[in-house]
């Protein structure tokens, strides 16, 4: 046996990798080797810890010391202090609101309110080594299922109360039952890893940090419904996840955990990857199946549902990455354990990608029923720079903006629906007083316009009209009837679009019109943008009291709109100003303001 006195886990998720965690890992490795310490101390890669804005993250065992923002130049000190003298490097420890630095992960406020079930292996095991997954009870759930009947497996999933994490929240056990009952000698299991919501990286992190949990779950699903072939549809923009999945699949095949006659029970199952080109509509299940078949990724009407006629018209079970990642845990720990977490109708936990105007940007997992307030303030650490909270956007382009009055609503599928948003796949974007809600609505509508496949007119043309109206409003050309027109268009599109992309596309507009109507009205009637975002409604003015007459603004103005005499206050000609904001950014005396 090799005995290492210390394991160093370095985050190899996308966030930390983009902050050069690979170089830190390599540097540490080389330096340890140079000093002959590489036989004592093992450096490993692991999945996302979630604390992305503190990355690159490094955890040193057996002490469990949690280091943040580790750079290449810190390596020597870590080796000399921590590994040779055995004292933590204070300056790399996490310092929260409390002045006291914390060495251990569990003491950090960000982690205290979380419940890591789906993410339990992320930050703990090396995702490129199947044996570490097995050491954490990996593939034991599959072994257990092969000793159960298909009905028993489906029953366990039903009893757990698990609902689809891809956005719709459809009961997973029921879906499995449909696929099981569909008669055919060829069925398929598909994993939806398209993850197209802007700002979302939950599924990506699960696949990067714990790919085997998804493979194992797909094999279980295959056994339960009677399929022996699986496909993972993943976007090519996720190179690390694609690479790890590839490694995981080949390691599972090598050990015979995929392939023929698994555990000598006569069950065959294999999985292949299919790479998508990153179109949002290919996340919609029928569009996705078309794309796997090599056709254009366009949704088709349902019914028939994929469980009846899916890939190549055969019964096909399609679930989301996070949905699958829950399955092995449910099988091993029992349906009751899972149903013990969460709210009445939404069981278990949910992973969210927390982003926007919040201090701790990252990946979090919380029990269903946690309030937005806990997420934004306790886990997220509040709004930066002492600004005021305005809203949380959940559910991506299909969801809505939730205002402060609903911060205490316990999050689950139904409560979010009732306040005009939705769970979606788990993106949460926090907005503060500087975000203009009309502009936000416009952003999502632009996204929909880019991503609509164009097959049905309500989505292709209707959302275009909505975008035109929103653009008009943000440019100061809004008219009173615009709000009614938006409302009418929204309800027509919702009722007539072919797939859920179009049916939910008006949600960001509807929810902002409902909760932030005053902002729309200010744009339309007063021609003002209260958050000072919409350029056309702003004017830049120079405060003569503060202006020192240095002329820097005038020299940098691209449209020659600023004039004046040196050492006397300058002024801006509003008719020439293109509102680029360059003057304000340049002024050293804070003399230029937006009004």
């Amino acid at each position: 046996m090799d005995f290492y006195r210390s394991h160093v886990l370095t985050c190899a998720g996308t966030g930390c990798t983009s902050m050069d965690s690979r170089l830190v890992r390599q540097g540490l490795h080389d330096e340890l080797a140079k000093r002959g310490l590489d036989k004592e101390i093992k450096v490993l890669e692991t999945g996302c810890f979630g604390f992305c804005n503190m990355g690159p993250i490094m955890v040193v065992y057996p002490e469990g010391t949690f280091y943040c923002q580790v750079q290449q130049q810190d390596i020597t000190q870590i080796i000399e202090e921590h590994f040779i003298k055995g004292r933590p490097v204070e300056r790399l420890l996490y310092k929260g609101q409390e002045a006291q630095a914390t060495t251990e992960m569990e003491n950090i406020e960000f982690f205290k309110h979380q419940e890591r079930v789906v993410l339990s292996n992320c930050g703990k095991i090396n995702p490129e080594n199947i044996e570490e997954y097995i050491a954490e009870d990996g593939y034991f759930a599959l072994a257990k299922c092969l000793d159960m009947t298909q009905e028993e497996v489906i029953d366990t999933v039903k009893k757990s109360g698990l609902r689809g994490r891809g956005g719709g929240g459809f009961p997973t056990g029921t879906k499995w039952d449909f696929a099981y009952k569909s008669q055919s000698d060829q069925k398929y299991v598909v994993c939806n890893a398209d993850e197209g919501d802007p700002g979302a990286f939950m599924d990506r992190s699960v696949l990067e940090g714990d790919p085997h949990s998804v493979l194992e779950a797909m094999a279980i699903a295959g056994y339960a419904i009677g399929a022996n072939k699986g496909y993972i549809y993943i976007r090519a923009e996720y190179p690390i996840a694609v690479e790890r999945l590839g490694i995981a699949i080949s390691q599972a095949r090598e050990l015979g955990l995929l392939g023929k006659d698994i555990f000598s029970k006569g069950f065959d199952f294999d999985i292949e990857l299919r790479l998508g080109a990153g179109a949002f509509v290919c996340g919609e299940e029928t569009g996705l199946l078309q794309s796997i078949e090599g056709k254009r990724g366009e949704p088709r009407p349902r019914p028939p549902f994929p469980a009846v006629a899916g890939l190549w018209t055969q019964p096909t079970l399609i679930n989301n990455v996070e949905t699958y990642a829950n399955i092995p845990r449910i099988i091993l720990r029992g349906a009751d354990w899972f149903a013990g977490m969460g709210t009445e109708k939404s069981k278990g936990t949910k992973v969210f990608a927390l982003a926007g105007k919040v201090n701790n940007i990252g990946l979090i997992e919380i029990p269903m029923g946690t309030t937005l307030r806990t997420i934004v303030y306790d886990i997220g650490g509040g709004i930066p720079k002492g600004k005021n909270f305005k809203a949380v956007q959940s559910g991506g382009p299909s969801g809505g903006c939730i205002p402060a009055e609903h911060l205490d609503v316990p999050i689950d599928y139904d409560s979010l629906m009732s306040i005009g948003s939705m769970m979606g796949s788990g993106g949460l974007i926090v907005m503060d007083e500087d975000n203009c809600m009309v502009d936000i609505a416009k952003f999502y509508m632009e996204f929909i316009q880019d991503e609509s496949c164009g097959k049905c007119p309500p989505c292709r043309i209707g959302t275009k009209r909505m975008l035109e109206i929103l653009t008009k409003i943000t440019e100061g050309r809004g008219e009173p009837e615009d709000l009614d027109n938006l409302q009418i268009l929204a309800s027509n599109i919702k009722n007539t679009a072919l797939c859920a992309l179009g049916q939910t596309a008006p949600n960001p507009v509807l929810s902002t019109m409902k909760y932030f109507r005053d902002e729309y009205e200010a744009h339309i009637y007063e021609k003002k943008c209260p958050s000072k975002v919409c350029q056309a409604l702003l004017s830049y003015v120079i405060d003569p009291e503060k202006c020192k007459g240095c002329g820097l603004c005038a020299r940098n103005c691209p449209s020659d709109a600023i004039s004046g005499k040196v050492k006397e206050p300058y002024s801006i000609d509003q008719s020439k100003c293109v509102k680029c904001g360059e003057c304000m950014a340049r002024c050293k005396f804070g003399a230029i303001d937006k009004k």
Partner: protein
Amino acid sequence: MKSIEELKAIKAKNRGDMSVRDAKGAPVINVHMGTCGIANGAREVLIAVMDEIKTRNLTNVHVTQSGCPGMCVEEPLITLTIPGEKPYIYRKVSPENAKAIVTRHVVNKQPVKEWLLNLEN
């Protein structure tokens, strides 16, 4: 993969290797590695401890280091902490003694009285 026994064997082997990451509940052998300790041979002691753990295939024993506890004349020092017990401090530890401490105290649970610094234990 033909049987669950095969899976269990892989698990058992790797749990051992990964026990370093199970933070709580393991005995901790702490080798004091201040400048004084290192000058007196603390590194050789550390290596001896690790060798012994390797040869005996021990799992769930943690090896850590720390600075000088202020008793430089007694170096090299080892502090052995067993959960639920007071720490045992061993003085003037040689590599051979270190191996013996692993065998006698960590494995066989018999403190080696004559090498202890804190005799009250």
